């Protein structure tokens, strides 16, 4: 996203949400008329475990400034254990991104259940603020995808 002198930097946030918990959580936050920033673009996935590292990287490639992955709470996975695998996978991936010097606050995993509409909205507000502070993603962006 472009930084415009007149306007505050508006980050693009990609949120991968699992179909059974977090996506429903987002729905609930909507029906409860809770606000969360329009910067957040939700991509629904069958399970948080569906997200492989390439998804995260490609989101950054295509202009995301922050990527958040939401799934059912540990123990509550619709497929029993999907989110446990996700947890290990993302821990290692985020650690690697950090190792390469990419800002660690651009990535996050959060567990949001279908009943936690308020948590969903709060998480998104908080995460968007954090990414806003970091400024545009420059270290893991593809220059070809930057809008001129």
């Amino acid at each position, binding site marked *: 996203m472009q930084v415009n002198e007149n306007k505050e930097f508006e980050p693009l946030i990609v949120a991968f949400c699992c179909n059974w918990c977090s996506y429903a959580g987002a729905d609930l936050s909507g029906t409860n008329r809770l606000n969360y920033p329009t910067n957040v673009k939700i991509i629904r996935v069958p399970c948080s475990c569906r997200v492989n590292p390439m998804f995260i990287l490609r989101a950054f490639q*295509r*202009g995301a400034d922050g990527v958040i992955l939401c799934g059912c709470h540990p123990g509550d996975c619709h497929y029993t254990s999907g989110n446990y695998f996700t947890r290990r996978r993302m821990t290692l991936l985020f650690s690697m991104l950090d190792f390469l010097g990419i800002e660690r606050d651009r990535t996050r995993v959060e567990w949001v259940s279908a009943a936690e509409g308020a948590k969903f909205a709060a998480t998104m507000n908080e995460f968007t603020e954090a990414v806003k502070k970091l400024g545009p993603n420059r270290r893991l962006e*593809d220059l*070809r*995808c930057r*809008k001129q």
Partner: protein
Amino acid sequence: MLKISLDRINELFEAISASQTLYIPTDREDGAAEYRKYESGMKLSNALNTVRSAKDFFFPQTENLVDFKMEGKNIEVIDIRKESEDFVIFGARACDARSFTILDKVFLAEPVDSYYKTRREHGTVVTMACTRPSETCFCGVFGIDATAPEGDAACWSDGESIFFEAHNEKGKKFIDSISSLLEDGDTAKLEETREKTRAILKKLPLAGLSTESFGGERMMEHFNSEKWGELSESCLGCGTCTFVCPTCQCYDIKDFNTGHGIKRFRCWDSCMYSDFTKMAHGNPRLTQLERFRQRFMHKLVYFPANNNGEFGCVGCGRCLSKCPISMNIVKVMKALEVK
């Protein structure tokens, strides 16, 4: 002959880079050399050669060709080429200089590759004669004299000074532009150095290699040779040999979707890759043996068949030192030699 003392070489670089972009081989922290854009204080490498060849300057690894923008049913085609700047490549070796002649045959033949041509026109190649050839060198096999490199202008070092000589108009212009720094020098010591280098060149372990068994006439004989199986059995199918090679010229053209348009670019391709020349019907070379054979047949048989006997190899020795499993053109030539 015009010369400049070696300890004043950076003055020379400053002068050249004041008017145009200058690239020189310089040492990296890992001990390997690579071409870099000259910046004040940069040291000329003593290494015999760079890891990547100098072909990058005329035929870069990736190059954007054209952009497309789509709106509704309209496609706008945008020529992204910018005004080219003049540049100088300093210190290319005789092998790399010959590789440009080979690349010219491919890219400047009809239909002319205008991207390549523009770069060739804007680039001045100043070569540097070798004084310490390596055991992996075999340029002599392809009729290249490492002590008399081609290029627009050439230079020689006798350990104290660098001597210059122009080979064409572009080279003359280059030497004129730096003439205020040059002085007339005695070439006696230089001749001595060259003589010494020639003696070493004769002693090189690969000096006896022969190209007699190769060329267009022996196409089917080599193609059907049973040796390919054994030669290629340990090939990893990586692209190292192709990408460090100064004469490999195959490329692929691809479209990259940026999300708001298309960038059409070309990038080096390697015949060692499984998707090389993959077409709608599939791939004509399904095994590593076939892909391996293609690379060496191209250099030793197909290329000379199409180019009056000129081979597609300059004996720079890069693939000899870089192949992960040490399989290379020399081993292939020795195995396929017709006694």
